[in-house]
């Protein structure tokens, strides 16, 4: 099963409802994973700068989004 083809079909499919729902589901999943991974990286002593580099976003963006959750 070629997942790349499936992704392209659903995400750019003819039915906007199905396609949009798939995009949203993927985004929700991405957010959850990002939260877990960023918290884990912080717990391992990573700086916001290091995390930002790996996520491909600015340090400010990652800090603004995740710092509020607080350190555990």
């Amino acid at each position: 099963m070629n997942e790349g083809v499936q992704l392209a079909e659903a995400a750019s499919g003819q039915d906007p409802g199905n396609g949009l729902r798939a995009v949203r589901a993927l985004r929700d999943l991405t957010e959850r994973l990002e939260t877990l991974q960023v918290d884990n990286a912080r717990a391992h002593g990573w700086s916001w700068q290091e995390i930002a580099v790996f996520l491909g976003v600015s340090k400010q963006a990652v800090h603004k989004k995740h710092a509020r959750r607080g350190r555990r």
Partner: protein
Amino acid sequence: MFERFTQDGRNSVILAQEESRRLRHGFIGPEHLLLGLAATTAGAAGEALAAAGLQISDLRLRVAAKDAEPDEPLDAEALATLGIDLDVVRRTTEAAFGPGALDRRRGMPRGHLPFAPDAKKSLELALREAVRLKSREIASGHVLLGILRAGDNTAVRVLADAGTDIQQLREDVIRRLSPAA
């Protein structure tokens, strides 16, 4: 940090933490400071908020609505159309981070809750308001002034939504902070 706070100033921050816990927010934001002030009925801030007709029960509802982050379950069916098996993702994340890692709400830290950056900002501004008003201590009234001075934060938005005249509230607090004439 809180050694310069008066009793009512300190109480309001302690109550802010309780308000945040009650809402399961995991951090103290300006909106929780506001609730803490409203709960501290003995202070200048609590008095001014009450005089402005702001009930703590109403403020709590407004804060809860503002901060509500619906924690919906992940859409396994839609992910399947993308060839993503949510059960597999769940298994791998739980293997790394423990049971329920992918599905649990944001973690609830025990002990002291951290201040959000905009709450810290409000407290810094509270200190500045105290200095400006020639007070050696930070009282609940100064904390409220700090929150209002910060401008755009959840607390100010909640107050604005409740129909509060921010400028009038500020003046009323300052009046209540000044020693009785």
